[in-house]
């Protein structure tokens, strides 16, 4: 919804503004550990599979072209319900840690992620968040400002028994967060638009829908906005540091960034055609 609300402002900028890349000296800070652990359980697949990669990186100066990877950490996950420990390793030294034994997060279990890096211990906890399935995704006919956008119409049935928060991944760094505050329990549909330069038609896309926690929803909403994918411009709120749910238990002040989250995820693939031809 955010993306849509920004649009009227965009129009005016298209009418009157000009953008240019400028050189600026930016401040710098000591590198921070980034723990990016968003697990997805593809609950609608048979057999059920899960994406359980823990990505460890360091933050870098803003104009630095390479983001350093962390390959020498020890990573494991503990199922606090039964005490089972799953070890993770980075065999190809790319900073992406995979479980050494196949691992599908269970319902209602609290998992604790532990990362030990340079003698400091980082800990975060997560429980799998339920999702629902995408009933249908189709290509629509509507457009936005330029007239060359591609519309996706999505449809799903929200669970009316609880507050739900969703994260949609339309690929190509197009994320969209949604809460069911105004459609709790209904058969909901909405449209997403790819801008002209974001997609080349015809194309096959896979849309992901994940159930996420309220906290992760808040986190991701700001993440998308601050990454510049949500519009940008003078009407943006003051940008802030984005603290996640992982703490440094050894040195409180050296807090990490990133998030540990486990979601149920449904995917939907479709072929998009060029309707202008």
């Amino acid at each position, binding site marked *: 919804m955010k993306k849509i*609300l920004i649009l009227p402002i965009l129009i005016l900028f298209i009418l009157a503004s000009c953008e240019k890349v400028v050189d600026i000296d*930016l401040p710098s800070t000591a590198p921070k550990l980034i723990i990016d652990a968003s697990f997805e359980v593809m609950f609608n697949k048979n057999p059920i599979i899960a994406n359980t990669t823990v990505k460890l990186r360091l933050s870098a100066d803003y104009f630095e072209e390479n983001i350093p990877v962390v390959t020498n950490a020890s990573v494991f996950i503990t199922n606090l319900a039964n005490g089972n420990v799953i070890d993770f390793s980075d065999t190809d030294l790319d900073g992406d840690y995979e479980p050494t034994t196949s691992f599908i997060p269970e319902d209602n279990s609290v998992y604790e992620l532990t990362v030990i890096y340079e003698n400091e211990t980082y800990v975060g906890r997560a429980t799998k968040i339920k999702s629902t399935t995408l009933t249908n995704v189709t290509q629509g006919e509507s*457009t936005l400002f330029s007239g060359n956008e591609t519309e996706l119409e999505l449809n799903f049935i929200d669970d009316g028994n609880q507050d739900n928060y969703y994260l949609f991944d339309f690929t190509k760094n197009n994320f969209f967060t949604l809460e069911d505050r*105004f459609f709790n329990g209904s058969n909901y549909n909405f449209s997403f638009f790819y801008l002209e330069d974001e997609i080349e038609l015809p194309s096959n896309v896979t849309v992901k829908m994940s159930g996420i926690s309220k906290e992760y929803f808040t986190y991701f909403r700001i993440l998308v906005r601050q990454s510049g*994918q949500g519009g940008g411009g003078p009407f943006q709120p003051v*940008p802030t540091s984005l603290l996640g749910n992982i703490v440094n238990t050894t040195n409180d002040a050296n807090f990490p960034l990133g998030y540990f989250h486990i979601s149920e995820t449904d995917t939907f693939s479709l072929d998009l055609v060029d309707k202008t031809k």
Partner: protein
Amino acid sequence: MLLLQDKIGKMKIYLNPFFLLFILLFSLNIYSQEKITLSGTVYDKNSNETLIGVTIYLPEVGSGTMTNEYGFYSITVPKGNYKVQVSYLGYSTILQTLDLSSKTTKDYKLVEESESLEEVIIETNVEKLNVRTPQMSVNSLSASTIKQIPVVLGEADVLKSLILLPGVTSAGEGASGFNVRGGAADQNLILLDESIVFNSSHLFGFFSIFNPDVIKDVKLFKGGIPARYGGRLSSVLDIYQKEGNSKEFKLTGGIGLVSSRLLAEGPIEKEKSSFLIGGRASYAHLFLPLFDIDNTAYFFDLNSKINYRFNKNNNLFLSTYFGKDLIRIDDSFSNNYGNTVINLRWNHLFSDKLFSNLTVIYSDYFYGLNVDAAGFEWNSGIGNFNLKYDFKHYLNNKFKLGYGINNIHSSFNPGKIKPNTTDSGIIERQLTKKYANEFAAYIEAEHKISNKLTLQYGLRFSNFLRLGQNELNVYQNNQPVIYNEQFKKYESAVATSTDSFQRSDVIKSFNNLEPRFSFSYLLNENSSLKASYNRMAQYLHLLSNTSSPTPLDVWTPSGKYIKPQLLDQYAAGYFTSIKDGDYSLETEIFYKDIQNRIDYINGGNLIANNEIETIILNGKARAYGLEVLFKKNSGNFTGWLSYTLSRSEQLTPGRTPIEPGINNGDWYSTAYDKTHDVSINTTYELNEKWKFNSNLIFQTGQPTNYPVGQYEVQGLNVPLYDDNRRNADRLPAYHRLDISATFTPSRNKNRKWKGEWVFGIYNIYGRDNAASLAFSQNQDTFKNEAIQTSIFGIVPSVTYNFKF
């Protein structure tokens, strides 16, 4: 109880000087000799429009008065023969001798200087009187000045002109609202014919809502704000519109690149009643279909007024304002917003010394959104009923008294969502509406103690009641915001229960005494020292966490969780007029202290938030600075230099020692802090045909936030920001030069149709001024970039104005 005692204690301190002054005042009245009152109304001779701020000066007694907002004046002097001088900027002065032996009513009709057949040059004391009056910190502009100042796309604009004067800035090109002396945009009281206007801009701030043809008088009070005004902290923008020509039918208009305007006015019953209808609309959108663009963005304003002069003592005015912006993108999205104001005023003279005005106002602001892509429509707004009764008591030539009451009942709709298609999954929902009542009573005096010392003092009492609403959340420990010590961040609390109220219940009540005081002390005939103090209370807050307000920001009243904003402002200044008013110099320093200025927790979502209290942190603000205004007032070459050096800061401390607050509990710059602000405006009248005008502006860049690093999460490249350096960086400095030329064809003189061309070039040297800096990754090269957005390059314009 303790709190109450504390309050009473404070009241005593505030009241003491006033009691003393009242005693002084009544003792002055005891030895009065026989006095005569001269009163009346001053009009423009051609249009019969009343004139505001005309000086009526009696040189023999060395004192005078000014006409009020309805053209009325009254002065009481000992019996005798007096010279009376009636002068007004841009009009020929009337000088006559009156034998005041009994009560005299005298109306004056002034002739515009440019229209008078022969120049009757009389040395005017206009500037000298400005030096004398204790009112300070006022920026005023005449409608004709506003029309000459070059502006973007040639659209004459009150707000854009005001920001050329000291102490006033805007958040930038294409930003709504304005900031006065380091105050926030929601701290300006904007009055249009005494009605509160909530949204002052069209098209997200590109144009202000005030039609320049309809404006009669504009005053911006930045400090020393008289007690008759209240409800906002930083400033009062008091705009009066014309009442309409009651002598003959007139058409005025202008054709510009973006919008055109037309104003029709005329008598209904000659010199008794008149009407005025003014419209303005943009039409750039009409051309969009030519480029096969199926989108639209336009605005319009409609001003209409009728007034009726029953007799000398009774006048009735009905006026309405209706303005709207509409933006539509294809069929997937539309957006409209605007103000509606309806206003009925009755002027009544109880005696030649007692003027009264009763006003009833309905005012509302509406914001609507239709998003087909998500299957919903949304609307929000604020509406209020306002009743005012104001009295002006012209007791004698040394003492004027004003008093009155004001009651505003407001209802706030934070938002309502509705499905707009049959297959939409959206469920209709109304966010909890809020209600409030604000009452105020005031008394103010202008008191001439001696030939050198004049005082202006007053006291305003305000009472704010937050009235019952359907649901009010209750939180554990009364804390809607909690600090998560583990994750080091503020989080919204979840309500433990809700209270429900009757509409007549009072959830929370606030009372404030707001003393106002200023004085002027004449150093010599041409210069004076002035100083002022004012306390203001503001009970409404505009929820906005962007660097400039947007039309979808909503207003929220103070209540159980949000306290009223309170301000103390101190200002002092030196005013001098040089060479008999050919030049003038005004310098002022000010210091402002604001309590209960809100800020928001990181990541707080303001849009459609029904529990807004769960993202609000309470803090304070301060601003201080120096203002200089040097003017050349006469000759072919006129203009001004304005300079402001100031600082505007905010502090949001943690509530307990473990909480960091915002910016680690240290002072941080507000989004509208500008250290240096210089503008030079010049006008050169070459001959009767050609007039040239220019603006040169330089400002320190606005505060912004640079990232201190970058990282990646889920494939997204994210700039890393440091919470301990909020608003610590600056956009590049802002500067530009604008010029305009006004051409008046000479054949105008004897024709009824009078036209003029205004040619302008905005930003003539094409400076790319940064409206914002955005940091994001280029999706083609995957390199991080700092992208500067500039709004206006070189913008030429042409406007044709006419009168018929």
